[in-house]
C-alpha cells in the first residue's frame, strides 16, 4: 500500500514533498545548521582573543652601545642590530625556514641557523637554504629619548638605514 502511494506521487506531482520527507529535510537541515554553528563556536573558543605575548616593539638601547661595523644579536627579542658605515639597521634573527633563532658567526662573517644549516649575509640576503627567503629588515627609528626602537611586526625593504 505504501509503495502504491509513492508511485502515484512520483508520477503525478514530482516536485511536492509528502509530510515525512518534509520533516526529514527540516530535521537534517537544522542538524546541519547546528553542526556548522558548533564548528564556528569551537573555532572561536579555541582561538584566544587576548594574548599575553611580548610587544613587537623593542627598545634596543642607545646607538653608542653598538661598536662600529658590528652585528649584535639580542636572543630575548630575536633581532640583530647591525651597525655599518651607512648607518644602523635591524634584522629579524628568526630563520625564514622553520623559525629557529639564527646566530652571528664573527669568524666566518655570516649569519647561520643551527637547526637546518641555512646561511645568510649580514644584510640578510641568503647564501644557502633551506631557508626560502632572506632575513627581513625590520622598521627601526630613533625615539625622542635617543634610543633605537625596532618594530618586529613591521617588515621594510632592504637597505633603509637609520643614519645618526
Amino acid at each position, binding site marked *: 500500500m505504501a509503495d502504491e502511494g509513492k508511485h502515484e506521487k512520483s508520477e503525478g506531482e514530482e516536485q511536492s514533498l509528502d509530510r515525512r520527507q518534509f520533516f526529514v529535510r527540516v530535521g537534517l537541515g537544522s542538524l546541519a545548521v547546528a553542526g556548522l554553528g558548533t564548528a564556528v563556536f569551537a573555532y572561536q573558543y*579555541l*582561538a*584566544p582573543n587576548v*594574548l*599575553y605575548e611580548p610587544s613587537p616593539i623593542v627598545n634596543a638601547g642607545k646607538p653608542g652601545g653598538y661598536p662600529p661595523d658590528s652585528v649584535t644579536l639580542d636572543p630575548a627579542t630575536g633581532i640583530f642590530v647591525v651597525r655599518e658605515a651607512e648607518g644602523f639597521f635591524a634584522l629579524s634573527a628568526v630563520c625564514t625556514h*622553520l*623559525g*629557529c633563532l639564527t646566530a652571528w658567526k664573527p669568524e666566518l662573517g655570516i649569519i647561520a641557523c643551527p637547526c637546518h644549516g641555512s646561511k645568510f649575509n649580514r644584510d640578510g640576503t641568503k647564501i644557502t637554504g633551506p631557508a626560502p627567503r632572506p632575513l627581513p629588515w625590520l622598521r627601526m627609528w630613533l625615539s625622542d629619548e635617543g634610543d633605537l626602537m625596532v618594530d618586529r611586526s613591521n617588515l621594510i625593504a632592504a637597505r633603509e638605514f637609520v643614519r645618526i
Partner: protein
Amino acid sequence: MAKTLTTYLDELRDSRVWRSIFRSGPGQSNLHHALVVQSNVFLHLFSVKARKRVLDFGVTWYLGALTFGSFLVLVITGVLLMLYYHPSVPLAYTDMKDLQFVVSSGVFLRNLHRWSAHAMVLLVFAHMFKVFYRGAYRPPREFNWVIGVVLLLITLFLSYTGYLLPWDQLAYWAVTVGSNIASAVPVFGHHIRFLMLGGNLVNANALLRFYVLHCMILPLTAIFFIAIHFWRIRKDGGLYAGTPSTVAEKEGER
C-alpha cells in the same frame, strides 16, 4: 598440591560472590571457556577461539600485543608523573628536574615513560610492517588497517605533544619547528598553527594545550580506537592465519 589448588579455585569460582561478578562459574569444558571470554566486558572484544598456530610467536611476533603493553606502561607511568608536574612556564622545567633528582623513583618512572614511548613508536612500525608483508591488511581486514593508520598518527601526535612538556631548549625549538611545519599547510596553515599554540609564540598557552592533548584528548582517542581495533580482529574473522594455501602447507608440516 596442584590438585588442592585446582579444588580451591573451583570452590572459589563456585562461590556466590564470584558467580555474582563473573557468572561463568567453575568448569573446564570448551563451552565454559567460551562463556568466560564472552561474559567479560574486556575479553569479549576478542574471539572465544583462535587457531593454535596463529598464537605461535613466529606468526605475529606478538607485535600488536607488545605495542598495547607499552601503551599500558605509558598510561600508568604517565599518570604517576602527572602527580608532580605542573604545566606552567615557571614550574614545568623545575618539576621535570625534581622528578629527576628529588622525587623517590621519579627518575625511574620518567625514564620508563621515555623508553616505553620510544618502544611504542618502534613497535607500531614493526607491527605495521609485519602486517603488511604478511598481507594481513587485505580484505576483509582492510578497514582495521585504516584504524591502525589512525592509531599510528595518534602515537606520533602523543610523542610530539609529550616532547614539549619538559620545557627545555630541545622541547622549545622542536615545537617551534613542528608548528612552523604545520603552518606550511595551504590556506589554513597559519590558523592551524595559531590554534595549536593558542597564540603566535610557543608560550604558556602552547604548553597548556600540549599538556591537555598529551594527557587527556589523545590518550582517550587512542583507547577508543584501540578498542575498535581489537574488536574488529574478531569481527573480521580472527587473527590472520595466512592464505588458504600457506595455511594448508603449514598444517601439513605438523
